């Protein structure tokens, strides 16, 4: 294979360039030994980069296409995440260590009831410090300005136990134990009227929940969920005055463990001793289950998925067009490279290299713009938009896949570069 290399070296092409005219030329690489794969890859990507740089307008178009796809996917995922985050606001705000729930409860706005005796049974476990049955009902709250009514989630529980920590609830424990008192969720939708503002300006006043007058003694922070536009928290005894229901049944049980107890071990023990009409969940599992209900049980997830896919398809078509035009416009150059001994594989790596470069240089500004838009939208709508690391990573992988696929499709055009047509 190395015949040429073995040939004795006459001074090559330009002896006059070497001092004395006869200095030996450094041996050229044996002609038949191709560059290693890694080095070849670097050179292929560099060639792709130089080609991309040579046409700034086309590069800008391609970058804009990738950026567009990137921003679209980020916004779709951001809105979806924010919506599903807010879908579970009520349960997410209800902080306790473990929860007991009826296994047939699909979503908190439509709970199956479980015997509240399960709460007392759970207390038998040495690690369970407190057990609080929670009662959930929908009731209307009257707008103090317009008088119109709107449905809110009413949460009843034994406030004195302190197992459930809604933000803002702790200072109200005393007040809420008085008869006919409620705390209102300050983050409820504005349709309920300026209940929070009036409270902050004038102190406690009366609001109507259900058909009954209550004294508003404080504000908590929960946030609207898909199932409820607003929330009202009241003590168990007050709850029973508004709603006449079977006192032996609760909708949810919150458990507080002794400090230092292992929640997973406690969960396993409770699971073993409690009957089949309850499931034992950690807080994370409780929220996740609620979220899964909204994600799978509604077309909302599909709408955002569809939007993301459209963004990726449009981005892919743009990148494909750019890469395809690059190849089609340089067919004779590609054919020349093939004639020079560049393999199909090498040229394919050039095209894929260009695709990957576009993915990276489109993603970076796309990511920056998305972070800016997240802040902007979060400020304007109070939707909880934020950029978790795994979302950034996932979108990068999607964009990478998008560009790579476009590269694979465009690569087929390389077959049209036939070195035999060059002469």
């Amino acid at each position, binding site marked *: *294979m190395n015949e040429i290399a073995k040939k004795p070296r*006459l001074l090559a092409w330009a002896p006059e*360039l070497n001092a004395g005219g006869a200095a030996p030329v450094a041996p050229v*690489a*044996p002609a038949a030994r*191709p*560059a290693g794969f890694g080095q070849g890859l670097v050179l292929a990507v560099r060639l792709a980069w130089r080609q991309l740089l040579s046409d700034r307008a086309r590069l800008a178009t391609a970058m804009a296409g990738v950026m567009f796809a990137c921003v679209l996917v980020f916004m779709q995922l951001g809105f979806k995440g924010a919506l599903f985050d807010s879908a579970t606001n009520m349960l997410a705000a209800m902080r306790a260590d473990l929860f007991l729930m009826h296994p047939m409860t699909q979503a908190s706005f439509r709970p199956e009831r479980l015997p509240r005796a399960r709460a007392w049974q759970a207390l038998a476990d040495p690690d369970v410090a407190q057990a609080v049955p929670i009662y959930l009902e929908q009731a209307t709250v009257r707008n103090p300005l317009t008088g119109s009514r709107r449905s809110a989630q009413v949460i009843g529980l034994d406030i004195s136990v302190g197992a459930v920590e809604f933000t803002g609830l702790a200072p109200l424990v005393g007040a809420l134990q008085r008869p006919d008192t409620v705390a209102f969720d300050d983050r409820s939708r504005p349709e309920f009227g300026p209940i929070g503002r009036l409270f902050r300006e004038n102190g406690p006043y009366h609001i109507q929940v259900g058909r009954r007058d209550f004294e508003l003694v404080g504000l908590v922070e929960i946030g609207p969920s898909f199932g409820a536009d607003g929330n009202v928290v009241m003590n168990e005894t007050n709850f029973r005055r508004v709603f006449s229901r079977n006192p032996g049944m609760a909708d949810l049980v919150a458990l507080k463990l002794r400090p230092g107890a292992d929640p997973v071990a406690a969960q396993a023990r409770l699971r073993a001793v409690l009957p089949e009409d309850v499931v034992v969940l950690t807080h994370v599992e409780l929220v996740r289950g609620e979220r899964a209900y909204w994600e799978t049980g509604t077309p909302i997830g599909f709408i955002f998925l569809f939007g993301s896919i459209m963004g990726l398809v449009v981005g892919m078509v743009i990148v494909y067009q750019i890469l395809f035009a690059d190849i089609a416009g340089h067919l004779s150059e590609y054919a*020349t490279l093939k004639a020079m001994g560049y393999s199909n594989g090498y040229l394919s790596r050039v095209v894929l290299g260009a695709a990957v470069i576009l993915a990276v240089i489109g993603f970076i500004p796309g990511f920056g713009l998305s972070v800016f838009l997240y802040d902007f939208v979060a400020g304007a709508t109070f939707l909880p938009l934020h950029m978790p690391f795994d979302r950034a990573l996932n979108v990068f992988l999607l964009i990478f896949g998008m560009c790579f696929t476009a590269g694979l499709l465009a690569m087929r055009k390389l077959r049209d570069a036939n*070195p035999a047509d060059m002469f």
Partner: protein
Amino acid sequence: MDAAMGGNSAPPMPPGRPQPGGAVGDGPVELRGITFAYGEGELRRAVLRDVDLRVAAGEIVLLTGPSGSGKTTLLTLIGALRGMQEGSARVLGQELMGARESQRVALRGRIGFIFQSHNLLGFLTARQNVAMSLELHAGLEEAARLARAAEMLAAVGLADHVDKLPAKLSGGQRQRVAVARALVAEPGLILADEPTAALDRVSGQEVVHMLRDLARRRGTPILLVTHDPRILDIADRIVAMEDGRIIEMQEARA
């Protein structure tokens, strides 16, 4: 001019030059009974009929003949740019009949091609274009590649133009860059198809003389297709083709 090289087309090698392939009679190009046809079935047209041709080491062979006589086809077969159909072709020791694609790609890397149009990559400078020939081969650092490319460009008289894009060069300068690109990796064989077709008389002669001189110094054989009677003087041997056959082999006057 290197007179010692000229006028010797007989099978024995030029004096003092070891044969690349080793075995006697194994020159850089050995063609036997090459027959080639384009098209299928009814449309099948024979373009080459039983062509025998051999190029000795260091020899410069010009291929002439009327249009359509099959010169380009023969060149693409020798350059492993097209699949063989019948006969045997040993090029730089590689048998092309039934060769795998990877073998053909490897062989192309050892041949310097010069086309009718320069086919330089428009987004690379003259020096980068020439260095592309060296990137195929391991063992050279980037700096060494660029230095070697610049030396080669200087050798074809373009020392002042190494960092220009092809668009900024004249037609003759571009073709000289193409010559430099074909030569820089020290190929075992140079194949050229009408390299002067796009050039005026003076720059055409400049380019082929430069090609001849550079190849002579290194002992690189050249097979060059041309219609241009003004450049026949560079040949050791002139081969005429007609209708797919070699009709005449003429020793050039030394």
